[in-house]
């Protein structure tokens, strides 16, 4: 018996997926997804699907409860799954529903929503792994690889040649010699590898909100790029006046108080790439987030030189995101704009959370 419930469950899941797509914009700008990321699946909370009815809001009605406590004692806050008096009991409390998506599905949803072009990996020839391909036909082989068509042809040929073929009764009986089998060969196949280097300014002016924005944005960038490459590596660099490489956790949590010398990060990034990720074999992505308040004293110029000579030539994409902080926004973005023009350099200004979406589109809209 096919379970009837399966049909209803699938219908519900379809509806939920549709709903996620609708609400994707909201999810994109919230950090809630990142914490829910498992191995392969991401759980996305979906608001409960409730059929509209004329009814009272629970807040407005209040209700009757039972237990100790004086007048004025709080018994629960908004959002707690507290049922009204009419319906408590055997029905389980209603939770926020979650639906699980693979990272791939999530990336596709985002791509559709933001109309992102697919990334064209470069250097596809240079990195290879061996892979089995069916290339030819052999006279011997396992039965499971027998090619019916070729065997039939051989048998037909033989029967025609030997005159045992009767067009009125076209029975073809293959014998041992007619058998043909598919054969395979190991061939090197190109795979696309990519590395993302995230750089972040952790100077005193980058507050928690700014970091959260960076966190959310880099999660989505990660998700999207990951969907296009077999292997994706990520490296994290932080800098104030000096740059160093850190792990993911530290990247998002560190806060220092020093000044800002952006060139230090660019220098380190260039070194890492040169040492470990030869651009012939790797798709290299740089993303740098800062509030743009660079030290004077010629550091800007140093950055331009580094970008021009070492980073941009090797990079698929260099994204610079300027996050607006409490102290306003720095000049670095303007400076870049006026001094450098390159096809793979993308500048984006992120004023607040709601600008994240637009900024992702800025960065990834080129299909690099």
């Amino acid at each position, binding site marked *: 018996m096919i379970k009837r419930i399966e049909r209803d469950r699938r219908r519900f899941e379809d509806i939920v997926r549709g709903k996620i797509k609708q609400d994707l914009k909201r999810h994109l700008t919230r950090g809630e997804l990142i914490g829910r990321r498992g191995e392969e699946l991401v759980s996305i909370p979906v608001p409960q699907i409730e059929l509209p009815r004329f009814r009272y809001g629970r807040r407005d009605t209040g209700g*009757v409860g039972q237990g100790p406590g004086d*007048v004025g004692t709080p*018994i629960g806050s*908004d959002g707690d799954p507290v049922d009204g*008096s009419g319906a408590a009991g055997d029905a389980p409390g209603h939770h926020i529903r979650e639906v699980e998506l693979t990272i791939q599905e999530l990336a596709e949803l985002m791509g559709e929503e933001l109309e992102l072009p697919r990334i064209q990996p470069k250097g596809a020839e240079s990195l290879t792994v061996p892979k089995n391909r069916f290339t030819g036909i052999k006279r011997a082989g396992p039965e499971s690889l027998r090619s019916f068509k070729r065997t039939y042809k051989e048998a037909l040929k033989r029967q025609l040649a030997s005159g045992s073929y009767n067009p009125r009764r076209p029975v073809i009986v293959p014998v041992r010699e007619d058998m043909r089998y598919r054969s395979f060969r190991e061939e090197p196949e190109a795979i696309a590898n990519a590395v993302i280097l995230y750089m972040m300014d952790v100077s005193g002016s980058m507050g928690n909100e700014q970091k959260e924005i960076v966190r959310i944005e880099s999660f989505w960038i990660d998700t999207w790029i990951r969907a296009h490459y077999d292997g994706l590596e990520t490296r994290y660099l932080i800098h104030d006046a000096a740059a160093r490489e850190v792990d993911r956790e530290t990247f998002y949590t560190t806060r220092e108080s020093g000044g800002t010398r952006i060139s230090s990060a660019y220098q380190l990034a260039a070194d890492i790439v040169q040492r470990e990720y030869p651009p012939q074999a790797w798709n290299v992505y740089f993303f740098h987030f800062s509030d743009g308040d660079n030290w004077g004293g010629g550091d800007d110029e140093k950055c331009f030189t580094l970008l021009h000579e070492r980073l941009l030539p090797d990079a698929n994409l260099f994204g610079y995101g300027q996050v607006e902080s409490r102290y306003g926004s720095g000049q670095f973005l303007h400076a870049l704009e006026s001094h450098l023009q390159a096809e793979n350099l993308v500048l984006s200004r992120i004023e607040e959370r709601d600008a994240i979406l637009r900024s992702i589109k800025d960065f990834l809209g080129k299909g690099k």
Partner: protein
Amino acid sequence: MPHELTIDLRTLQEQIEQHACAYGLDFFEIIYEVLDWEEINEVAAYGGYPARYPHWRFGMEYIELSRSYAYGLSRIYEMVINNDPTYAYLLAANHLVDQKLVMAHVCGHGDFFKNNFSFAHTNRKMVDEMANHAARIRRYMEAFGEEEVEKFLDRCLSLDNLIDYNAPHIRRSHYEPPRDEQEPPVEPRRLRAKEYMEEYINPEDVLAAERQKLQEKQRREERFPSHPQKDSVLFLLENAPLKNWERDVLGVVREEAYYFAPQGRSKIMNEGWASYWHSKIMTERALDPSELVDYADHHAGTMAPYPGRLNPYKLGLELWRDIEERWNKGRHGSDWEACDDFEARKNWDTREGRGRERMFEVRRHYNDVTFIDEFLTPDFVRKHGLFVYEYHPSTGQYVISDRDFAAVKEKLLFGLTNFGQPWIEVVEANHLNRGELVLSHRYEGVPLKLDLARETLENIHYVWKRPVHLETHVDEEPVVLGFDGSSHTTEPRKE
């Protein structure tokens, strides 16, 4: 697939039912099916009915039930449906003592279904009826498309609380009182009077009032429906321009809503009744001493008052016990009410001994509203620590606001009257002589949830096809919400 009852369980069923009958419980034949947890979740998602029409919300229920079972949050002990024979389900993995408890509990429900007045007119062959509904809706889905039919079902379900919860049974058609044969008089009748007495015998102001009354009456006669109609779904069924299959689908939804209504209206009584009887049967007759601890654990689990929440099992059970005690000891009537001596009240016992008898009367003639109204007493509220809570917007918390008896009772009744649903009725179907539909919400100080109300209006519009209006209150101001097919309006109105 449902399994046959094992010999053990069959013997158990016979024993329990003998005990139940000895106490005077009276039920239809009970048929148990033993299911594993996946099956029981599936059946529960469909509300206990083996065949329901296809709809995503059952899938939603199923996911929720399976998840919460898998995470150990909840499990279904007992499920029983109002039908003749009464069907009930047992979870295969349960202990024998649990099965006993469930069977005893089910006897209580079975008795209540059979004997409480509000179930008297429910369809006792509903299992078959639901299967018919399912078959019909499946057929429509094949003919008109799954998407289309399910969408329309969603709209119908969004209206399924617009029925007359207080009607004793489902009405097949609306009764419109016959109109007067003759044209109603437009002018008030004058008494005969001599000319000089005219202004004393037929004073102008009285005549004016009379004239106004007549006009009002005439206006009403011209209006359709002539009296507000509470069963709005029936009104739509009979008067909205629906396709035949749509009419049938709406009819199915209405039929099921009416079938389920008595269960909603007697939840506290019914659960209390079944709990009372399972505890009686178990503790007085059926329980083996070795099972005591498990039984006590599970009984306590069902009765536990969640912090700040009202458990209908618990409230019902305690009210039933209170009734039994009061009529055993004669704690009712004017003498009892008038007595305010604490000692005397505490030791009050007239040896009336009518407790059990009174319980059986009450289970036949009451529903939750009348039950609470009559048997909730100040002593009870104090003893069980009931309170009223309210939402404080400033702190975002629900806070205990009152422990006074009157307030508790009022709040409880408010939640139960009309099944806790807003009172909404069709008042006019030809508004402005343009075939626009007007619904009216009887405002009782609590506003409707506005976003949902607007969406619901859209669904009514889809059914009615002409602009629809809802008279209600927003921010304590009387307004009319309107939807004309493309945009929503909110206009102030005069009371």
